[in-house]
């Protein structure tokens, strides 16, 4: 993975930079000892590492603003960081950059049940947002798998989703307002506790911009009342194509499940060996979950099971108790752990139109054979967000590179059938160089022009999202 060479002028001015930062930051908010900055050398994508010049852990929007002013003034790149759970290298530092981590900013600022919103500092973790409102029966809907650890700031940066977004949408559909600090230190307010912010939809633009347009320090989030209950059904088929058809028929029937999860045979076998959830050994397994009162759940599951039966399932199991529900989800929830136990793996994140599922699974199978690397599939079938897991041996020379090549081929396949390179993990550095497979140069040019407006010197989260060759004239001009 190529990263731009560190700017020697910045490295040479390190002590001057640290002096300026130390002039207003408390001692514990500024980290520059190389032994300590090492803790920030990577995020969830651990294959790439680089310790930053310094780490700033501000306690307020004002401290973020002051830090940015200094960095902007001195031309120092800034890498925003939430909890560091990015799987795409979205928070990977460069040697000449300052990390601004918002993890200490985790307060709940306001809860308003009448108007159904919560305002938080963005270092707060996703799950603890729900934690703050669940006593009143409310929850915050976007639920990335990392929700225990990941921060709202990162959720906004990557427009995170989760298993339940088929019904509730992703972050952008649940974000009402932000306080954001621009690279020059200007503090801005966009949107608020009302729906549909005024002017151009800057809120929609910021969400998913991977920390390249500003640092979001506070967020107003929509909260919803929890449903009365939820119950899953497990459906097994001996053909991925039939399973795909079943998904499509369920959606067409007018039932909107909160989740439709799909696992293929390699994944089922691995999770069975690991968790013993009692799954059938079949080609494709679906877990469909619906919500509501008991009567509503019964009615929806009846419709779903009627549809499932028409396709001749090898297994059809409706949960009738909390315990059974847990068992049905057990294998799915252990899938990533199970795969990790048997092998090193690379988790991809492509998205495809749902009706292309059978073809894509067939092609992935063929490509897997060509490369000689096994691929297991587990994903959110309702919205076409696939997570093929490529198994490889990290200790075997050349295996990682082979794995990366296969991964790139699979993502190109997703784009070919009308999908995209990333559904929820983001581009980061991981998929940066594939961007031209999805977009033509003018499409990228206008995206980069947007960054010019927010961050004219191209200092925020450097070398992410855009292929280096596409962005180099801008980055070099800015230096």
């Amino acid at each position, binding site marked *: 993975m190529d990263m731009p060479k560190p700017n020697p002028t910045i490295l040479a001015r390190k002590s001057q930079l640290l002096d300026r930062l130390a002039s207003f930051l408390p001692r514990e908010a500024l980290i520059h000892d190389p032994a300590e900055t090492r803790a920030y050398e990577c995020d969830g994508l651990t294959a790439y590492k680089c310790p930053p010049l310094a780490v700033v852990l501000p306690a307020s929007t004002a401290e973020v603003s002051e830090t940015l002013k200094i960095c902007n003034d001195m031309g120092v790149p800034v890498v925003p960081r939430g909890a560091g759970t990015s799987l795409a290298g979205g928070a990977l530092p460069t040697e000449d950059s300052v990390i601004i981590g918002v993890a200490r900013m985790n307060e709940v600022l306001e809860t308003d049940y009448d108007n159904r919103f919560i305002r938080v500092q963005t270092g707060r973790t996703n799950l603890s947002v729900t934690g703050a409102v669940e006593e009143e029966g409310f929850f915050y809907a976007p639920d990335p798998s990392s929700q225990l650890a990941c921060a709202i700031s990162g959720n906004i940066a990557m427009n995170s989703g989760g298993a339940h977004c088929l019904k509730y949408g992703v972050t952008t559909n649940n974000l009402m307002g932000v306080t954001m600090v621009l690279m020059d230190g200007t503090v801005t307010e966009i949107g608020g506790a009302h729906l549909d912010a005024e002017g151009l939809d800057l809120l929609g633009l910021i969400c998913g911009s991977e920390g390249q347009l500003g640092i979001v320090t506070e967020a107003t989030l929509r909260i919803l009342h929890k449903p009365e209950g939820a119950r899953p059904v497990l459906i097994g088929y001996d053909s991925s194509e039939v399973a795909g058809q079943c998904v499509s028929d369920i959606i067409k029937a007018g039932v909107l499940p909160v989740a439709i999860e799909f696992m293929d045979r390699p994944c089922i076998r691995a999770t069975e060996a690991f968790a013993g959830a009692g799954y059938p050994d079949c080609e494709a397994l679906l877990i469909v979950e619906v919500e509501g009162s008991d009567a509503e759940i019964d009615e929806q599951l009846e419709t779903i099971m009627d549809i499932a039966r028409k396709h001749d399932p090898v297994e059809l199991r409706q949960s009738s108790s909390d315990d059974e529900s847990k068992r049905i989800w057990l294998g799915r929830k252990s899938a990533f752990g199970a795969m990790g136990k048997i092998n090193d793996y690379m988790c991809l994140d492509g*998205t495809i139109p749902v009706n292309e599922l059978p073809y894509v699974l067939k092609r992935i199978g063929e490509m897997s054979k060509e490369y000689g690397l096994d691929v297991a599939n587990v994903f959110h079938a309702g919205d*076409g967000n696939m997570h093929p897991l490529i198994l490889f041996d990290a200790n075997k020379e050349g295996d990682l590179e082979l794995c990366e090549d296969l991964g790139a081929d699979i993502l190109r396949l997703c784009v070919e059938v009308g999908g995209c390179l990333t559904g929820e993990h983001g581009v980061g550095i991981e998929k940066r160089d594939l961007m031209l497979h999805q977009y033509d140069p003018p499409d990228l040019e206008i995206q980069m022009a947007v960054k010019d407006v927010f961050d004219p010197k191209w200092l925020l989260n450097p070398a992410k999202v855009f292929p280096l060759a596409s962005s180099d004239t801008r980055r070099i001009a800015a230096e």
Partner: protein
Amino acid sequence: MKALAPTSEAELAEMVASASEPLRVMGSGTRPIGVPVNGQPLTTSGLSGVNLYEPGALTLVVQSGTPVEDVRKTLAKEGQRLAFEPMDHRGLLGTTGEPTIGGVFAANVSGPRRIQAGAARDFLLGVRFVDGQGQVTRNGGRVMKNVTGYDLVKLMAGSFGTLGVMTELALKVLPASHQTATITLSGLDDTTAVAALSRALGSPFEITGAAHRQTEDGPQTCLRIEGFEKSVAYRAGQLQTLLADLGTAEIETDPDANATLWQDIRDVACFHDGPGDVWRLSVKPSDAPGIKAQVDGAEALYDWGGGLVWLRVPQDTQADTIRATVNAAGGHATLIRGNRAGGVFQPLSPPIAALQDGLRARFDPRGILNPGLMGRAA
């Protein structure tokens, strides 16, 4: 002036590239919101038709000038719909013509279901557009989850043709519901009504419409629920109980009566006839009754649980009067019908205005796409 009416994206791109004066970009002109543009009209109505429809994937790809009615009919054949329930502005604004799907997204027009399903912008998955230089660009795609690069799709929604002329839109659609019921409480004052709507929206019963309106029979507070038959009946009963201290709620299940009721709310039918300026306020629901009370002679229709306030005020009520009350509470006000001298859109804070100007300068460096439309009247 005869309107430019390209019939292909390439032709449109050529027209924009060679334009030497400002263009008044529109669909078919049924939503003349904003300051009128002094320029050559350019309509997308020649760009019409469905390019791709995959009911099982809940996606539709359509050209921007396609009439909304055509889109509705196409979806209805498969039992699907535009879940955000776009408003038709013709009755309120006295315009004629066929609303286009491009116009819906250019103005980010949503109806009562916005509170549950989301706004128009939440259903836009991908766009192709021609920028101010005549360059064809695309962003997003046709899948529901996509974080590949910046989300310019959202930026295009609600940009009123100031950033580019949209040519093709990929939409997320949803199944139509099997059954609808409306629960109506009568005689509540505004504050009690909004509190009742909040209580219902804070319940687990999935409200898809929450409005408070004045009728000949007095005020009505309406809640809509949709879904399968048994489920609708169950939730209607639960809501009746939840609101029992405020009166006996009537339950309407007739499909036609429900369709008319919510279409009237969606299109602000109560303000179609008669004089008066009409404002659209987006506020925190609990602030809404107080804001209305501060404007002399104002009548209100509350949608979105009170978060969307349609205010009819005496003709030529000063814009500053409305804005001052909204500003104090947080939120924004847009003049939809009336004298535009005081500006139409909410003035933005200086840093936000600078970002917005910067974006417009990048997308349209010559300033030819709907110049002045989103600004203050001269």
